[in-house]
């Protein structure tokens, strides 16, 4: 084929047109990423892309040549051939060889990606409607500390009432933090529906499936902040569930890790403290704003009939234990999940207090962390 001048000229033309386009890498093409795996995936992508381009140029080239020349308007009389075994065999075997040439590097990269062993540390990644939870595990897979990662973009930005920030929809309150140059193993799962955890720059994506563990790993050579999104339809706010990973130098990471351990201790201590109503209201408002507002809405009005209003709800203003129970256990079979693993007793107490005393609800009593702890211990018996 290469000795046909028109074809080689066409190839040249397309390459010339495509080359500058490829240079817009960020806008037009897959990101190269920062890990070894992501680079290999990128190379693979470019390889198959160019193979397809070349085949396309040849195939369409022949076709357009025919369209230009073999037209009746140009006075062309039809030939009468309608089969040719040799050429038919050739264009069956040819593509097969091309496919094998693609399959070999693809297999190599894939095998590498599946090598999850030999990790330096493990993080559990758990999808919730619509946020991520990161749990840092020790060598025996026991939790050391955990936190939730919620989107930070405000409703005002989304609904055009405020200017959109730089990382619109791609910013979270608490990013996942990992060190450079260590092999991090991720255990993916979910609490409710299927989500998918994707960091394009690491070249990894995997579904987070309730009740099932999937594994991923990454070694990131460069510090930085890397952004991705949930990529499996998971309900209403699937589009508002960013994945943000902050990669720290190993030394910085170790410092950060130490701080987190201490903070976890401090949170445990808070469970036995007694707060003032003002402290509870402030903390409750914050918790509500991150954990509840997506469904129950800023003024507690909900989105009936699916998401009930909390303002005026008898379940909220009734017995304190009722609402603690709802938060602790969730409402099975509905989007109202159990918050027991996302919020600690202090946060639950605060949000219960807040909902019972906001938007026209005025029960007036105070809910303390110990109420929640007591309730949960009672429920375990």
């Amino acid at each position, binding site marked *: 084929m290469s000795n046909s001048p028109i074809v080689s000229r066409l190839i040249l033309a397309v390459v010339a047109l495509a080359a500058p386009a490829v240079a817009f890498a960020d806008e037009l093409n897959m990101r190269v990423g920062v890990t070894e795996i992501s680079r290999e995936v990128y190379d693979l992508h470019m390889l198959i892309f160019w193979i397809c381009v070349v085949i396309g140029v040849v195939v369409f080239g022949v076709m357009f040549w025919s369209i230009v020349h073999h037209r009746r308007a140009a006075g062309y009389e039809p030939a009468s051939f309608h089969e040719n075994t040799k050429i038919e065999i050739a264009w069956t075997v040819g593509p097969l060889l091309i496919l094998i040439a693609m399959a070999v590097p693809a297999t190599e990269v894939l095998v590498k990606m599946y090598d999850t062993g030999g990790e330096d540390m493990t993080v559990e990644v758990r999808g919730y409607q619509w946020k991520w939870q990161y749990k840092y595990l020790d060598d025996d897979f026991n939790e050391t500390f955990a936190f939730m990662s919620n989107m930070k973009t405000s409703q005002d930005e989304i609904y055009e009432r405020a200017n959109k920030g730089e990382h619109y929809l791609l910013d979270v309150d608490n990013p996942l933090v990992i060190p450079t140059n260590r092999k991090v193993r991720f255990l993916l799962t979910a609490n409710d529906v299927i989500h998918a955890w994707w960091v394009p720059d690491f070249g990894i994506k995997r579904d987070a499936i309730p*009740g099932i*563990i999937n594994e991923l790993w990454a070694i990131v050579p460069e510090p930085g902040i890397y952004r991705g999104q949930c990529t499996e339809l998971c309900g209403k706010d699937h589009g508002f569930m960013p994945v943000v990973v902050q990669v720290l130098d190993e030394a910085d990471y170790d410092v950060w890790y130490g701080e987190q351990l201490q903070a976890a201790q401090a949170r445990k201590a808070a469970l036995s403290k007694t707060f003032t109503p003002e402290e509870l209201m402030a903390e409750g408002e914050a918790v509500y704003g991150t954990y509840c507002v997506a469904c129950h809405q800023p003024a507690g009005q909900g989105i009936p009939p699916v998401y009930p209003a909390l303002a005026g709800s008898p379940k909220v203003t009734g017995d304190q234990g009722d609402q603690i129970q709802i938060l602790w256990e969730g409402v099975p079979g509905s989007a109202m999940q159990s918050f027991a693993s996302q919020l600690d007793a202090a946060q639950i107490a605060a949000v219960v207090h807040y909902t019972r005393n906001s938007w026209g609800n005025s029960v007036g009593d105070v809910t303390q962390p110990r109420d929640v702890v007591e309730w949960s211990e009672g429920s375990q018996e």
Partner: protein
Amino acid sequence: MSNSNDQSVYYVPHDGWYPVVLAAGLFFMVFGLGDALNAMKSGGDPGWVMSALGFSLFAVVLYFWFAKVIAENHAGLNNAQVKRSYVWGMGWFIFSEVMFFAAFFGALFYTRVLVVSWLGGDGGKAMTGDYLWPEFENTWPVMDNPDNAVFTPPEQSIQLKSFGSLFTYLPFWNTVILVASSFTVHWAHSAIKKGNRSGLVSWLALTVALGFLFVFLQGYEYWELYTHYGLTLDSGIYGSTFFILTGFHGFHVTLGAVILLVQLIRAIRGHFTATDQFGLEAGSWYWHFVDVVWICLFFLVYIV
């Protein structure tokens, strides 16, 4: 033209109201059913009226439809080619049923061989069991669910315990009944092909009787399972696969038995001849199909 008895012409029936009314009946039936299920789920009153009316409409139209097809055949409108269309039609319909069961057998295979082992900490996704369900063990039948608080596990399994107890095992006798009925329906068919109508009627009657006996015993088994074994639809994957397979099979046996019952009534009324008995033949194919499904089921669900 098409109403002549010209056998070189393919009979194309005239316009008729059956199909569109049947579709309407189907619609009301399933819409009513959906309403009822949703009402029950939220603890309300199912109100079966709409679906019952839809079903009645559906059944009545079906009656008229088949009556008309039979009458057309008796009037000699169906030439050999038309009959061949019916043969193809029935054959491919049974193939579609095979694929329907294939989905459930596939589910049994997938959960039993792969999922339960992963959840139990074996195989390619052992982390699932090790990390999320440390208590759960990889056994079949599943007598303890990964989360027993959500799905109450069964108390006993229905699996055949030892080959010695085969003869006291109800599913075994059900197998015998169903296999026997496959023979009887075949003999019924052979009888009419030799022009022996009384043979047809008695073998067919026996087949129908065996069919309903099977359904009755299956019903009895279900009652036992619900009351004594704690094996129910909501007792986890074992109950789920067990009941969906045996349940849809039982439903098909009932359907097949009703089809054969209709053929029996027709046979008594003097339908079918030595050369023309497609209704019966189609019914018997269906019956053999149901039988084959049961044999697979007996081995895969009850024995291994």
